[in-house]
């Protein structure tokens, strides 16, 4: 076997492991789909963005109220979203529902790591400052708060620095 072929095989075998490191939202599909087929995620994103903005989840003020216990709004949004999510996942598992492309739906449970505590605290600190978790950062830019682009680039830099020093951090 040529080294090139070996390399390719190794890449295929470990790619999913690397991709799913420190990540929840992973593509579990084994189908190879052309680039244009992703239009449906763009449309879903537009809908999601509209919901985030119209419900003011992207508002710095709503986030401040949440962390000062001055409003129930954000607790209601996240809580009811989780309840609907729990019911949906339960039904998908129970009824063994297949995806629209006919695949068995896979959900890999995540293992506990101390990163969820340390990283979670760090993200929480940032969330209360920017008033935005990653989704709202994108939506805020769309609502013409163009300066948030700087915050987004800084978040990408933060992600990069984490990746760079990942092996030196406690997990």
């Amino acid at each position, binding site marked *: 076997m040529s080294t090139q072929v070996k390399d390719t095989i190794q890449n295929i075998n470990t790619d999913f492991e690397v*991709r799913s490191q*420190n*990540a*929840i*939202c*992973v*593509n579990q*599909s084994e189908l190879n789909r052309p680039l244009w087929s992703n239009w449906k*995620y763009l449309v879903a994103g537009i809908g999601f*963005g*509209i919901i*985030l*903005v*119209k*419900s003011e989840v*992207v508002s*710095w*003020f709503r986030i*401040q*109220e949440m*962390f000062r216990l*001055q409003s129930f709004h954000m607790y209601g949004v996240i809580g*009811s*979203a989780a309840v609907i*999510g729990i019911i*949906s*996942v339960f039904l998908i598992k129970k009824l063994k529902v297949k*995806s*629209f*492309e006919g695949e068995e739906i896979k*959900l890999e*449970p*995540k*293992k506990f790591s101390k990163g*969820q505590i*340390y*990283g*979670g605290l*760090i*993200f929480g*600190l*940032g*969330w209360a400052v*920017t008033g935005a*978790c*990653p989704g709202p950062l994108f*939506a805020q*830019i*769309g*609502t013409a*708060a163009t300066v948030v682009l*700087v*915050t987004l680039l*800084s*978040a*990408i830099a*933060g992600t*990069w*620095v984490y*990746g760079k020093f990942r092996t030196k951090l406690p997990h």
Partner: protein
Amino acid sequence: MNFIEWIKQPWPWYVAGPLIGLTVPLFLLLGNKSFGISSSLRHVCAACLPAKIPFFSYDWKKEVWNLFFVAGVLLGGVAVALFLSAPAPVVVDERLATELQQYGITNFESLVPTDVFSWPQLFTARGIVMMIGGGFLVGFGTRYAGGCTSGHAIMGLSNLQWPSLVATISFMAGGFIMANLILPYILKL
């Protein structure tokens, strides 16, 4: 009030929350994808500047759906700004409004307060700490935690993963510490 006028009002939590929750089954059904957003930041790193770092050495094209999704979220923001925005200022809790006044935050016209987040503010100490510092913490922390509000608090909890509950509690703890104990000093800058 007609429908268009109605949807231009801020949406209550019991409308928005369940719709957000439905994103979980939607993505599973559309293409066997677990819902989440912060990974998009990692895919940008993997696509633009992997620098041979093992954490960014993977086939990001397999996750390109996530980049389409966040591009859509941005366009959703544009759509609201163009067609669905409410003309009224943001309603802010009185206690918060009084507190913010001390720090010169008095403009409640937009969801993102322009007294803190605007291009001119980027050249002030407060602006740098809040926009650049805050953004960095969001990007570093979400990846370290392995997910953000969408990945852990919604997708992870939906799948009843207790590590996601730990992460969600940590997010909230970090937020409470910042908003109540540290942010007042930053806002004074």
